[in-house]
Every structure is written in structure tokens, then in C-alpha cells.
């Protein structure tokens, strides 16, 4: 059983940016940047699927000593960190020396990176000195509605309340 590393998402993002990876931050971490007041234990990203980008992503992950995790939380040494495997997996659960990273090629309620990267779906944010593209709260909510896991059902009322509050305050 591999213990979770100290969570430093800024280092994860900075490493990805340094390697020139094109990606969008999705999931709970994206929601936190927009006011969701809850803890998240990992960072979820959707990368561009073009081969060169996945190669850069693999290089960045290797620099962070990334290892694939099984659903039981064990390290899967048989799973190589390379662009081919990243492209073939819909979702890859990884642990790195800066914390856990989930690579989600096609998040629920979106057609992957080309969909998320549009200005209507995401925005640029400075996180720890890195400029990263983050999925808008509306997109996070749509994704959770479709995923429909117990934890999504639990989070949705609070996410929707946050969105209502944001919209109201922007009027």
C-alpha cells in the first residue's frame, strides 16, 4: 500500500507548465479555485490528446516520479508512463512525489480538451506562479451530474448553491 505524498498541487502544475503540457484543470480542485470550501486530495486534469502533448505529459509525470495506482491504492509497476498508455486510458490514477494526479482524457459532460479549452468553458488562473486553464464551475457541476457517484450526489447541492451565489453576485 502506497501512502499519499505531501500534496503540493502548485508543484504539479508548475512541472506540467514547464514541460509545455496543454491541459485543463477539472474536478474538485477547479471548484476550489472558484470558492468551493472543501478539501480535495488530488488534482484532476484533461490534457490535449495530440501525440506530442502526451509525450510532454509523460515526461513531466516521469520527472515527478509518477506511478500508476490500482483501484486498491497499490502501485501498478506494470503500467508504463508513456504517451501510448496515456492515450489509451480514459482515466489514469497516478501518485507523484507532489501528490496524486488523475489524468482524465474525456471528462463527463465534455468532449475532451478541445471542448474544455474554449473560453466559454474555462478560464486562465495564476496558481503558484503558473498560468493554468481551469474548468468553470458550471462545467464541473455538469460533469458531476453525469458521473453520479455517491460523492458527486453529496457535493452537488453545495456546488449548485455556490454557483447560484456567484451568478447572483455578478448581476
Amino acid at each position: 500500500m502506497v501512502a499519499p505524498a505531501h500534496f503540493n498541487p502548485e508543484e504539479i502544475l508548475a512541472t506540467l507548465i514547464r514541460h509545455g503540457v496543454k491541459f485543463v484543470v477539472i474536478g474538485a480542485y477547479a471548484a476550489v479555485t472558484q470558492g468551493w470550501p472543501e478539501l480535495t486530495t488530488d488534482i484532476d486534469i484533461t490534457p490535449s490528446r495530440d501525440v506530442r502533448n502526451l509525450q510532454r505529459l509523460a515526461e513531466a509525470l516521469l520527472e515527478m516520479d509518477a506511478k500508476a495506482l490500482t483501484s486498491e491504492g497499490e502501485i501498478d509497476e506494470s503500467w508504463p508512463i508513456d504517451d501510448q498508455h496515456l492515450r489509451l486510458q480514459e482515466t489514469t490514477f497516478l501518485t507523484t512525489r507532489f501528490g496524486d494526479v488523475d489524468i482524465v482524457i474525456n471528462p463527463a459532460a465534455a468532449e475532451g480538451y478541445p471542448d474544455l479549452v474554449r473560453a466559454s468553458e474555462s478560464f486562465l488562473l495564476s496558481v503558484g506562479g503558473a498560468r493554468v486553464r481551469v474548468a468553470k464551475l458550471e462545467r464541473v457541476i455538469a460533469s458531476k451530474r453525469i458521473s453520479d457517484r455517491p460523492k458527486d450526489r453529496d457535493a452537488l447541492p453545495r456546488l449548485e448553491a455556490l454557483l447560484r451565489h456567484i451568478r447572483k453576485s455578478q448581476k
Partner: protein
Amino acid sequence: MYYTNEMRAGDLIYLARARAGMTQAELGERSGVAQNAVSRIERGQIDPGFATVVALVRACGFELQTSFATHDSSYARDVRRRLALSPRERLDVAVDLAQATQRAALAGAGASRSSERTA
């Protein structure tokens, strides 16, 4: 409130009866299920059919609502990984998460939403 699949039928019946403030005898009388059977169901000695569970819950004054959710094993994975830590290490991880979350929230709050969103 929703219940997980860790719950047995007997637990569900017990909770419904307790919330209704009924005795096993009263539930038996109202549902037509023998008091002895109610007792054995609650203790897990009898695994009742779905229709019986529905009837007993209804006799307590409730409707049994069921629904599907997408299976998710990530809780189990996270729990196992945290149990592998010492209590002190678990606290350290929790502090890390809280600090990282706070930094992310501050980054979002510090950004000019209008200009950032159009970038």
C-alpha cells in the same frame, strides 16, 4: 439521509421501527409479520425478501426509496492508503490538504474574474 450497501435489511427495519417509536410487537401487529420474525430479521437471522422489507418499512410509516448510483471504489482506495499511515502522518496529510486547498482558494479569489475569464 441515504444508506449505503453496508446496511443489512435488519438494520433498515430496526432504524425505521426506532424512528417510528414502535415495539417489535406493534410492528408485527401492524404489518402482519410475526413479532418473532421481526426480531429475527432485525438480528440478521432471517434475510427477508424485498417485498417484506418494503411492507415493514411502510408499516413504520415510511416509504422505502431506492436508487442507483455509479459505483466508485475511490473511497476504499483513499481509506486504505490513509490507514497505512501513523496518526501523526494522517494529521500531516490533512494539514497539507487544507493548506493546498486554501492556497487554491486564495488564487481564485485573488484573480480578477472578469479579466481572467476572458484570457
